[in-house]
């Protein structure tokens, strides 16, 4: 398959550090997109600010690199203005769950047809390792030099609770599963969210003595488990592992936001015609 047409080859090599997981996410996304029946010319990819936010620059679509945390709000405008466009959001864990957390839950609540890929490296990568809402309690960060006392979100549950209709979690140690999840998310009509565990050997890894990318990926594999297997675990065991796979899927295209708004337009105009 020709993957190069989805990349702006002249913008490569990318700026990410050696061993960074963000490239794996981009790669899996491109493979998923190539398998979808989406029109490349009718697809807009929108990102916020952070190492993750740089992904849009390498993608050969209409791309919008917005302000920190606001990608989903811009995306909501694009999608509402022209519902024929496929709108994909790429955001970091800081971008999407701290400064942009409000937009995340509200877009989920509306169930607007966006595909949100959240690059979760559990840290503010670009600004050099401050803790994010996804940094585990006890970990070190440049702004938590004595250990992070914040509790981290369970983002997948948060977005599911807010009303998102497709929720999945994947990890960079298993790019094949990531690709499958992205493809399913793209196809889903409604708000879809794929939390994508990524590794940041530089801003996170160094402070936490997490080793190189290979070691970090091994740790990822140890900390995660297939969702079906996770469901069989005891309540106590469940807390120790992150389930991977499709965690929620509600297929109801009629409940999608632009579809519901279109119904209002038709209703108002039919009343006018009476």
């Amino acid at each position, binding site marked *: 398959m020709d993957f190069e047409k989805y990349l*702006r080859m002249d*913008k490569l090599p990318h700026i990410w550090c050696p061993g960074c997981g963000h490239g794996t996410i981009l790669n899996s996304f491109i493979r998923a997109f190539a398998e979808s029946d989406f029109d*490349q*010319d*009718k697809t*807009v990819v*929108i990102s916020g600010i952070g190492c993750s936010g740089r992904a*849009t*620059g390498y993608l*050969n*679509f*209409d*791309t*919008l*690199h*917005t*302000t920190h945390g*606001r990608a989903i*709000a*811009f*995306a*909501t*405008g*694009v*999608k*509402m*203005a*022209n519902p*024929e*466009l496929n709108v994909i959001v790429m955001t970091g864990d800081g971008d999407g769950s701290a400064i942009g957390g*409000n*937009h995340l839950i*509200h877009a989920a609540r509306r169930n607007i047809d966006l595909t949100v890929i959240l690059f979760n490296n559990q840290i503010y990568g670009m600004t050099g390792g401050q803790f994010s809402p996804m940094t585990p309690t006890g970990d070190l960060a440049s702004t938590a030099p004595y250990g992070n006392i914040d509790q981290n979100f369970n983002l997948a549950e948060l977005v599911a609770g807010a009303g998102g209709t497709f929720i999945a979690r994947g990890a960079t140690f298993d790019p094949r599963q990531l690709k499958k999840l992205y493809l399913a998310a793209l196809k889903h009509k409604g708000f879809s969210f794929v939390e994508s565990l990524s590794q940041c050997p530089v801003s996170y890894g160094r402070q936490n003595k997490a080793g190189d990318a290979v070691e970090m990926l091994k740790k990822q594999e140890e900390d995660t488990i297939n969702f079906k297997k996770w469901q069989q675990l005891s309540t106590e065991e469940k807390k120790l592992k992150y389930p991977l796979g499709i965690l929620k899927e509600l297929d109801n295209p009629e409940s999608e936001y632009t579809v519901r*708004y*279109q119904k*209002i*337009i*038709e209703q*108002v*105009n039919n009343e*006018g015609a009476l």
Partner: protein
Amino acid sequence: MMKTKIFRPEKRAVLIQGDQAVVEGALAAGVEFFAGYPITPASEIAEGFARELPKIGGKFLQMEDEIAGMAAVVGASLAGKKAITATSGPGFALKQENLGFATMVEAPVVVVNVQRVGPSTGLPTSPSQGDVMQARWGRNGDQEIIALAPASVTESYELTIKAVNLSEKFRQPVVLMLDEVIGHLREKIYLSTSDEIEIIDRKRPAADQDPDQYLPYQLTDDLIPPMADYGSGLKYHTSGLFHDQSGFPDGKNETAKLMQDRLHNKLHNNLDQIILYQKDIRKDDRVAVLSYGSAARTAISAVNTGRKDNLKAGWFKLQTIWPFAEKEVAELAAQVETIIVPELNQGQLIREVKRAAAGQAKVLGINSYAGELIKPEEIRALLEEVL
């Protein structure tokens, strides 16, 4: 897909508020998208769009906050729609970062600010012109902004159309600065038919534009690059980082300089189209009252009654407050001895007037900043004092 209806109001007289006139003006100018967050005294604008937009196949979004409202209108603009948002001072503060982004990516959008007394929650239902400098300097970095200030319901209608047109023409966010009095005032106005109104649409690339050759930030003679709608196949990158003609950031100082200068010059080369004002200054007038927005109503009425008693006074009303009418005010200062600047703030635009007057005329302020309007008698008293 349903076909969108074209908005064609019949010519008719209506008795409406300034806020409603903004909605009428925007629809007449071709606006099809609103996103915002409710706030007094601007909520009537959101309510008007919520009611009217579905009728023409347009879209209304009540977002989770003003930041999101601003982001969504920029997104809609990039997707090819004329888009508008409306708020008041506290919400205007929240919009600033994404307003700067709109300037940077050159997305035509209109931001309405129906001003109330600040700082903070202030006096939500009282008029103010306290956001004049917020409009000009509220964002990080140097940058131009266009800001218009209507002084009546009719002007709210007409200047909204102007604001949309200027934003489209110059690929530039435009701020429309009402205040509580104008927003809530009811006046009888005439709504025009669509063929009576000049409507400007952004310049787009030719239909046969080769995608490989498309430069979204091309350096054209008029300094305004043709803008493609998302989804039209040209696949371009939009970024708030300084970018070259291809739209990509390259981190170079020369690129930033080139872009800063282009953003400045695309407006400054066309000030004659942007700076709108009205005046009535007679040859032998010795004083001019220079004002804008609701303060202009008091100013003009004070001058008109003063003239009946043979006061040598005239008035100058700015409809465009930013970019500031530097040349025109300098000329005015050369013509009269004194310029009086009544404002509903502690003296904001008067700083610009003094700068432009450069000592050629005395510049005196009359200020009300706690929610009360300036009274014509206050202006009259100062007129008599200086004359």
